[in-house]
């Protein structure tokens, strides 16, 4: 196991040292696939005699190269859309004219439709073609006829070396072809196509995969005319994809596992169905439920981001709901998203009304709220036909949505008798929704429901619709049935672990790692019955073979209580599923549920800023000055006293939602309101924002007496960048021993005084030799897998001990010092996909992923981390420097000098150039701003001509709010650079580290060592 960049030179070095017989490319997404193709092109596979297992490179190429794909499909009698591959704008224009606008632009070899788009005219074409050519690995794009209103149907195919092939599952996209499948709301199986269409496409899928020579798994996407049986193949993904993960969870067929076996040479009929164990894997699963996948978008995190849905994927995660009616699955999926919605209708603040024009506009140009506009349209009385014409959503789905809308009205008008209540539950209404409509709270509804004997039933997901007996532990709850597949437990036993819900900004695979490792830890330490509840199809925790029972279910209070009534566990673990499960802690405790680990009251004190600050005061631990929000007047008075900037932060939120750095009175007023909205049940706190301080974190585990410190982590950027967006380094390299002692001391004091029994994360600021505590999270943190892997000490496994009431082993507080490896975590951003989004970082988290690399020195680790996160580290070339504010300019001086010394050509905007010239660092070329296109040389031209290799652009936000006047120009530079894939460094610390990494690389080579296993500590 190596933590290294997935790029040819690193993979080659591993091939060289490990001398493997085979290489599998289909499991690491587009990154691995692209890397494999490059390895082949570079002759590396041939050189070492490494065989590609699974689909061959040739097969991959004829699905990835757009033109080759079309030719291949035509050869095997599968129709495709009219299109042409081009490499220049001139050719693109010609083709678009032939095909007639609108046309769709697709980019070869990219993930998630990156860089593509729909052009309705030549101006849009120019924009998208420029972006697309830049994004394409091979400088090639495809101009294609646009069939947005056709149905989008997908098939998941398995095929072995012998050519046996089957369909695992098919899926239908509710938002038709208009929206990328990653951003689409998807049902499995398809609902609106008939037997003939289903099998016509199925046969085409099998024929195509046979012709391409798929070995393992692939996903095939078709567009199907809603007015005839005309169809076209859109694309084939010759690898495991988001859709295959979804198909696996939707059917119980372990696609990745089977693909790996097939890659090794097993045939499908040889392999066993892993649910029944007695039947073969060469079969097509039968479903007796409907699955609904709903994407999770996080547009609110990005000011300026364009929310429109289209051919480019913008979502950051997804959920899957299982039910026995479409209405049930859809409403469940909405609740699973955790976007503070209880379903399609009857939401908090759900009474907004829209005029007809706005509704129609939103149906035509969809954004993330499209389904709510459909509901609004139905309420307004728009006909199904009209809505269909505008939105291209099949009338069948619209009729079902209408059932939900009608039910809301029936609940408003009628008495809440058994039949109606049961029907509402079958349509997926939650107790909270029903309560809101009928003026009751969710617990009253729960009580009424139980009195009337209305409860969900447990059903198994068994791959064969109950046709054969199956011993499966893969479960869901539904109101669409009368019989439980499993009896409720009468004896109290087992532990329930709550998962982390959908991936989103701030909660990603780290918390899934936490969930899975907690399950394993509990099992290892003697727990016989561990149940998981989670709803994210992209996770490992929702693999049914991880735990003893898996409920693919909502992480809502109502549903968890339903499950607990069936499971009757000894207790529930809420500390590993991130903020999702952490937020349920007080609610579950209030409902009499036994929580394992830290006492819910202690968790509450830590989350409640006001109470937390009081405790710190009593412990004599320093913290930035703070005040609980009571009135705007008080808030202003406080801010004036401590001086701007101040930080406004709500309680019980993750990833700094609505947390804002505020520079003025106006800002204070605006953001206080937002903070109150985000966390209405919890107090908002204002703290002094300490400029120019270092940020430090500690990840640890405690049993209430004994504290295990995983590591002390230092942020590379100075405080103010959200911890999820900051680059982090272990060990800290700018701290004195005294400070480290203080931090250790504070950590132990806080962990024991909060009587923490489980994982925790503590955050500090260090300024002028003083240590301040800013935040305590009594739960698993985002950085725990990073710390655990570097320290070879699995913190979550340790945390399972106090959760089960067992003591932690004694581990020295400075164990981390004895590991002489540097580890650096680098965030990964998705600004490219988020059209319009600005990449300047702040206190609210914006990154969508992360990488971590280890090394023998700071720069060894950092250079690998940067490459992994997609930065190119040019050996020579040109840098554009544009810095706002004199303080930042001073800070960048050393970096500029170093770059000059390393022979990089420096370009700078007028003021920055003037400053640098004054300091006599050597020749600086002046370039002009994007807003002054007539002045040459202009930044835009240089960017497009690829004459800039990287950019240092530090905005002068220290004295101004974002986005006023002059800052717009800097935004333009960053945005253009992002679209063209040119690295932009937006903080002085990052620029400095980047330059020093370039210097280090001139004289050194990075190390390539495998990851070392966890130590046994007890």
């Amino acid at each position, binding site marked *: 196991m190596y933590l290294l960049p997935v790029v040819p030179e690193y993979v080659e070095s591993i091939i060289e040292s490990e001398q493997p017989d085979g290489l599998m490319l289909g499991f690491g997404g587009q990154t691995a696939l692209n890397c494999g193709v490059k390895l082949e092109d570079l002759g590396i596979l041939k050189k070492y005699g490494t065989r590609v297992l699974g689909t061959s490179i040739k097969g991959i190429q004829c699905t990835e190269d757009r033109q080759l794909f079309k030719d291949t499909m035509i050869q095997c009698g599968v129709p495709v859309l009219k299109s042409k591959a081009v490499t220049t704008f001139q050719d693109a224009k010609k083709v678009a004219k032939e095909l007639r606008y609108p046309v769709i632009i697709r980019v070869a070899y990219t993930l998630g439709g990156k860089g593509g788009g729909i052009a309705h005219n030549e101006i849009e074409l120019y924009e998208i073609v420029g972006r697309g050519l830049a994004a394409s690995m091979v400088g090639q794009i495809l101009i294609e006829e646009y069939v947005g209103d056709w149905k989008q149907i997908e098939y998941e195919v398995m095929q072995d070396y012998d050519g046996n092939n089957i369909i695992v599952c098919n899926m239908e996209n509710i938002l038709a072809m208009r929206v990328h499948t990653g951003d689409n709301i998807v049902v499995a*199986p398809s609902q609106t196509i008939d037997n003939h269409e289903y099998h016509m496409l199925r046969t085409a899928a099998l024929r195509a995969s046979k012709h391409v020579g798929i070995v393992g798994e692939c996903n095939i996407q078709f567009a199907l005319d*809603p007015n005839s049986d005309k169809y076209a193949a859109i694309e084939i993904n010759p690898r495991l994809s988001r859709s295959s993960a979804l198909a696996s969870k939707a059917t119980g067929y372990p696609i990745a596992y089977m693909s790996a076996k097939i890659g090794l040479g097993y045939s499908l009929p040889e392999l066993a169905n892993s649910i029944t164990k007695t*039947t073969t894997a060469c*079969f097509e699963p039968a479903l*007796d439920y409907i699955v609904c996948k709903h994407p999770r978008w996080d547009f609110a995190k990005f000011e300026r981001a364009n929310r429109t849905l289209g051919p480019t994927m913008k979502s950051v995660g997804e959920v899957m709901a299982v039910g026995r009616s479409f209405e049930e699955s859809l409403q469940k999926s909405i609740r699973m998203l955790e976007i503070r919605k209880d379903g399609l209708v009857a939401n908090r603040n759900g009474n907004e009304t829209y005029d007809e024009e706005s509704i129609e506009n939103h149906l035509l140009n969809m954004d993330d709220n499209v389904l709510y506009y459909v509901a609004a349209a139905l309420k307004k009385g728009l006909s199904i036909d009209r809505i269909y014409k505008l939105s291209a959503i099949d009338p069948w789905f619209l*009729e079902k949505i209408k059932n939900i809308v009608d039910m809301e009205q029936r609940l408003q008008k009628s008495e809440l008798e058994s039949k109606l209540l049961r029907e509402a539950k079958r349509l997926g209404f939650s107790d909270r929704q029903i309560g809101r409509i009928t003026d009751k709270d969710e617990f009253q509804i729960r009580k009424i429901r139980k009195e009337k004997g209305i409860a969900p039933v447990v059903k198994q997901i068994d791959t064969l619709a109950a*046709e054969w007996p199956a011993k499966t532990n893969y479960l869901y709850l539904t109101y669409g049935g009368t019989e439980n*597949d499993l009896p409720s437990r009468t004896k109290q036993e087992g532990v329930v672990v709550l998962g982390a819900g959908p991936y989103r900004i701030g909660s990603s695979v780290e918390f899934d790692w936490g969930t899975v490792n907690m399950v394993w830890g509990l099992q290892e330490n003697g727990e016989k019955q561990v149940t998981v509840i989670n709803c994210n199809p992209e996770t490992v925790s929702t693999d049914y073979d991880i735990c003893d029972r898996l409920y693919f279910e909502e992480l809502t209070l109502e549903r968890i209580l339903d499950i607990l009534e069936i499971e009757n566990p000894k207790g529930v673990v809420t500390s590993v599923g991130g903020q999702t499960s952490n937020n349920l802690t007080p609610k579950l405790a209030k409902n009499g549920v036994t929580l394992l680990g830290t006492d819910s009251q202690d968790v509450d004190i830590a989350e409640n800023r006001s109470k937390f600050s009081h405790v710190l005061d009593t412990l004599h631990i320093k913290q930035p000055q703070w005040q609980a929000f009571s009135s705007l007047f008080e808030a202003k008075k406080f801010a004036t006293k401590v001086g701007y900037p101040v930080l406004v932060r709500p309680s019980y939120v993750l990833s700094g939602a609505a947390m804002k750095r505020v520079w003025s009175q106006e800002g204070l007023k605006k953001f206080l309101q937002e903070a109150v909205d985000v966390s209405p049940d919890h107090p908002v706190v204002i703290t002094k924002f300490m400029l120019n301080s270092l940020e430090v974190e500690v990840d640890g585990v405690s049993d209430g007496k004994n504290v295990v410190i995983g590591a002390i982590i230092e942020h590379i950027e100075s405080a103010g960048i959200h911890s999820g967006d900051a680059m982090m380094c272990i060990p800290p390299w700018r701290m004195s021993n005294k400070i480290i002692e203080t931090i250790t001391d504070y950590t132990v004091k806080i962990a024991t005084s909060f009587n923490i029994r489980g994982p925790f994360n503590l955050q500090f600021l260090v300024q002028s030799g003083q240590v301040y505590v800013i935040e305590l999270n009594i739960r698993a943190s985002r950085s725990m897998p990073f710390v655990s892997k570097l320290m070879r000490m699995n913190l979550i496994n340790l945390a399972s001990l106090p959760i089960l009431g067992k003591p932690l082993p004694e581990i020295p507080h400075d164990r981390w010092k004895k590991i002489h490896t540097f580890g650096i975590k680098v965030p990964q951003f998705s600004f490219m996909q988020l059209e319009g989004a600005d990449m300047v970082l702040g206190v609210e988290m914006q990154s969508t992923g992360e990488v971590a690399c280890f090394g023998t020195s700071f720069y060894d680790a950092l250079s690998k981390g940067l490459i992994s996160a997609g930065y190119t580290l040019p050996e020579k070339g040109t840098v554009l420097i544009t810095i706002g504010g004199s303080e930042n300019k001073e800070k960048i001086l050393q970096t500029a000098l170093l770059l000059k010394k390393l022979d990089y050509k420096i370009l700078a905007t007028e003021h920055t150039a003037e400053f640098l010239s004054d300091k006599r660092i050597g020749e600086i070329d002046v370039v002009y701003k994007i807003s002054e296109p007539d002045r040459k040389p202009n930044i835009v031209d240089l960017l497009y001509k690829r004459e800039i290799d990287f950019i240092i652009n530090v905005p002068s936000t220290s004295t101004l709010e974002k986005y006023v006047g002059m800052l717009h120009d800097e935004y333009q530079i960053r945005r253009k650079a992002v679209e063209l894939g040119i690295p932009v460094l937006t903080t002085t610390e990052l620029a400095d580290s980047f330059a020093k990494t370039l210097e280090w690389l001139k004289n050194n080579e990075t190390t390539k060592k495998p990851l070392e296993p966890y130590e046994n500590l007890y």
Partner: protein
Amino acid sequence: MVGYTEALTDPSYSGQILTLTYPLVGNYGVPEKSITDKDGIPKHFESDKIQATGLVVHELSETASHWNLSMTLDEWLYNEKIPGISGVDTRSITKKLRERGVMMSLLAVSETEIDERELKSKLENVPKYSDEEFMDIVSTSDSKTYGNEKESIVVIDTGVKNAILRNIRRIGFKVIQIPWNSSIEKVMSYKPKGVVISSGPGDPKKCPKTVETAKSLLKQNIPTLGICLGAQILGLAGGADTYKLKYGHRGQNKPCLNLENNQVYVTSQNHGYGINPDSLKNSEFNLWFTNTDDKTVEGIKHKEKKCIAVQFHPEASPGPYDCMYIFDELKNLMEEGTPGKR
């Protein structure tokens, strides 16, 4: 999910109440019945009426959406006077059926309280499915012809599906559809290039006349394909035995292994009886296909004569098209006089 139009009109379901495991039914409605292909064979239906005697579903789609929609499933059942019920936990029924096998059942609707005991005793007294005679109900009473090619294939109709006729047309032959109890003389009077013994309902042992004719076909070495019930009839004719399966095969996702090329095909199946694998040893047949799940017999090939038979439905409709090549195998038998190899 898909295929209710095809399944409900499949004569093999005659005398049965159908319950569907997929919970949402009727989404795309029912297409226009009068649409036929150029030979006059209905395009979307497997016979000219609903053959099942009742339908049980979890959720009936009250509205339907499809470009070739002519009515909803509900309207269709109503027009053809076939009772149906929705709002039933069909998964729990399926579990019962998988334990006990196919059971006698009764569908009752009433405004007043239903007396279950009375109904159960009623059910005791009706003729059992296994005792019923279906052939005169499902088979054509006189012969019919589709197409006007010189060369023809005779279809012995033991409950034929239109998809079988369509597939014979596809491989380029005139179709002559004759009653189930036609004699060998009757068959040979058409001078066919080949014969298909069709699928159909019930126990093959209830078709002794067809078995007799099949024996003569084997004797005269007429290229013959048996499908489902037709396969069992050929099996009996060639000295094998048939039996009632504990778990019948019903669905569109049944994997079958072709022992000649070791390939697995996903097939459409609907049968409660099968050919006894042990009886094959002393018969004129070799095993050709097996079910990969329970290893039952899914296809047989005559050791010497031009005769093949499959237990699954190569004509699909409903179901996958993977095995349509079986019809081409028949064509090979007819044209080359040697068993075809794929």
